[in-house]
């Protein structure tokens, strides 16, 4: 038997059989299908569009298209005073406004070179850790939805509601806080705040366990996520992954530890990294697991802060805020550990104006998502959904 030729177009093979007969074999005519997933799709978490080239249910290649929510945050920044940018940073990552605000304020404070009162630092850490829990709750809940489990999502939102209430109580807004200001805070916390947060911690501990039992330990959930979308540690670093994504690949890297800011060096908490027993290192389950464990670590941080937070009589959280914020010429790259990874602000001041010359936001989701093309090669569509869910993108931050 000898193959004489092959026409690529419709997969036809011309074969000379052993008895000299020429047979034309025509394979089943297949071709790739282009599947546009998003921008309106239930599991792209917003307006992400993935153009998938699929072979049956197997994704040959998925190309992400961004920008559907782009509003050019950086252009706004060039037209706004330093303090007026803070509410815009809230709107970047609207699930973790406090953390993004903190990163931005750290940057400007570094440029201004000013001291922050200790009480302010403690409050900042408490609110950003509360926000981290709230953000992880959304991540875990929506991940459940992506994989078809609806109930954990609502349990997550029920508990997140308490955090939002707490944050509304201190900042006046539920999601877009504008609470952390350059050099201080918008308001001091209410007198009962300490007690109420302690109550929340006590309330949330058993709920987190229940959530793990319902979702993370579920065999179907484990089967769906284990070994899906494995990212080796070195590639993850090369892609500049950060936060739970990088830690899911087994790299113990947390800016709160490795580039400490605020009062994190004084606090005692673990950086959870998967051990490879329950999950394969670097897979979607590891990333989910890191988020789940981080919630408990955040609770630990909050408890310590509540214990150590100094009470100051007649404390004015705005006392040290400069009247006119005009940093001297210079540039800074400041970052903080967001729930989604490293959020950084590259701020350039020309020293003359009260507006930054340049304020680039390095968004964690944007960078984490850039590995999507690599991660999605050869995956099934359900796995693709599992991978997007585990990246935990917020399109407001991706597109800025």
């Amino acid at each position: 038997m000898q193959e004489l030729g092959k026409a690529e177009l419709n997969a036809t093979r011309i074969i000379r059989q052993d008895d000299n007969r020429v047979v034309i074999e025509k394979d089943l005519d297949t071709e790739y299908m282009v599947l546009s997933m998003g921008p309106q799709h239930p599991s792209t978490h917003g307006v992400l569009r993935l153009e998938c080239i699929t072979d049956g249910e197997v994704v040959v290649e998925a190309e992400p298209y961004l920008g559907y929510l782009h509003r050019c945050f950086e252009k706004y920044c060039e037209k706004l005073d330093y303090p007026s940018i803070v509410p815009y940073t809230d709107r970047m990552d609207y699930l973790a406004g406090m953390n993004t605000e903190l990163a931005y304020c750290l940057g400007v404070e570094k440029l201004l070179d000013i001291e922050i009162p200790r009480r302010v630092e403690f409050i900042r850490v408490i609110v950003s850790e509360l926000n981290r829990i709230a953000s992880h709750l959304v991540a875990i809940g929506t991940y459940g939805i992506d994989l078809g489990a609806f109930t954990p999502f609502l349990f997550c939102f029920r508990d997140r509601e308490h955090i939002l209430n707490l944050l509304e109580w201190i900042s006046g807004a539920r999601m877009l806080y504008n609470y952390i200001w350059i050099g201080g805070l918008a308001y001091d916390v209410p007198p009962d705040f300490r007690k109420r947060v302690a109550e929340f911690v006590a309330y949330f501990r058993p709920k987190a366990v229940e959530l793990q039992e319902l979702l993370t330990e579920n065999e179907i959930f484990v089967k769906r996520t284990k070994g899906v979308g494995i990212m080796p540690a070195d590639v993850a670093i090369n892609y500049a992954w950060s936060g739970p994504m990088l830690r899911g690949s087994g790299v113990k890297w947390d800016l709160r530890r490795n580039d400490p800011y605020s009062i994190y060096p004084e606090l005692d908490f673990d950086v959870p990294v998967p051990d490879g027993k329950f999950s394969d290192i670097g897979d979607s389950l590891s990333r989910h697991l890191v988020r789940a464990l981080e919630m408990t670590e955040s609770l630990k941080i909050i408890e310590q802060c509540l214990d150590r937070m100094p009470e100051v009589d007649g404390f004015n959280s705005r006392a040290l805020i400069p009247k006119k914020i005009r940093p001297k010429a210079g540039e800074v790259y400041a970052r903080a550990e967001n729930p989604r990874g490293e959020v950084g602000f590259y701020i350039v001041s020309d020293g003359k104006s009260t507006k930054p010359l340049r304020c680039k936001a390095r968004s964690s989701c944007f960078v984490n998502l850039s590995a999507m093309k690599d991660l999605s090669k050869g995956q099934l569509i359900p796995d693709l959904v599992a991978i997007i869910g585990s990246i935990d993108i917020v399109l407001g931050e991706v597109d800025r």
Partner: protein
Amino acid sequence: MSQSPSLNTWSEALSGFYIGWLPLGLLIVAAVPLIFIALYALTYGVYGERKISAFMQDRLGPMEVGKWGILQTLADILKLLQKEDIVPTAADKFLFVIGPVIMFVGSFMAFVVLPYGPAFIGADLNVGLFYAIGIVSFEVVGILASGWGSNNKWALYGAIRSVAQIVSYEIPASIALLCGAMMAGTLSMQQFCVLQSGPYGFIHYYLFSNPIAWLPFLIYFIASLAENNRAPFDIPEAESELVAGFFTEYSGMKFAMFFLAEYGSMFMVSAIISIVFLGGWASPLPNIGGFALNEWTSGPVWGAFWIIMKAFFFIFVQMWLRWTLPRLRVDQLMFLCWKVLTPFAFIAFVLTAVWEIYK
């Protein structure tokens, strides 16, 4: 068998009822399941599912239309009726229209052989169980027609998945039901119930009287979830992956027909499982000494009550599972079918055969 003389008396009497040339009785016999399906899908199916899911998720569920929102489904139906009935330009119009009809008819036709009590059955076929299995898988044609006819990529995916899934799960499901048929020695649905009724109530049910019956019972229950596209096997309509699967392009009443068909076949499989393994309309209460509980709670009306309650219980379990579990992936679904359920179904088959010979 005290009921056997009165078996099917009501439905037979009805089918002989003519007004002139008009077989009114036959129409009524056909209308009873239809009305039942509509009422049940409206009340327990949609409203019940919404409330049950809400309570499991610490929510209230529909509350606005009527007291406790009981008229919510009516409002939904009105809304669906008012919606524009869109047929996409690029769709294959014939298949697109015929798809939901086939699905609905398929799930409805199976109700023919359901005994709603000792005195009422649409048609007491001697191959009733066989007919039911066959007709339930008729839905595949409707799903394929609507998925292909929509000319939508998501719908196509849903249809392909669905066909693969339903055809595969036919095998363990049928074998599991075959175990039941072996225990009873009949395929007639009425006979199943008759054989499982007796003075000791639930003791006579195959699930409790036969030591192996739990295995085919469990296998059939799992397989029936998959055949109905219910979670955790709802991959054909996996809303987070395939938007809405095979009915992505449907709106208005065509969409509602998919819903009715789904709830119809949910009831169907729940009824089948309760007939084959749990005695159908036979009362579960035993006679205890002078308290002839079993006899007091038997009879045509009680029979209807029992079978509907048993089916509703299984529907509740289906909903309960749906609002607890994540969804399986396609390959895991197939793994479960071919490598877990099918071998165990064969084991159950052999064990049942051995038990039936040597008991």
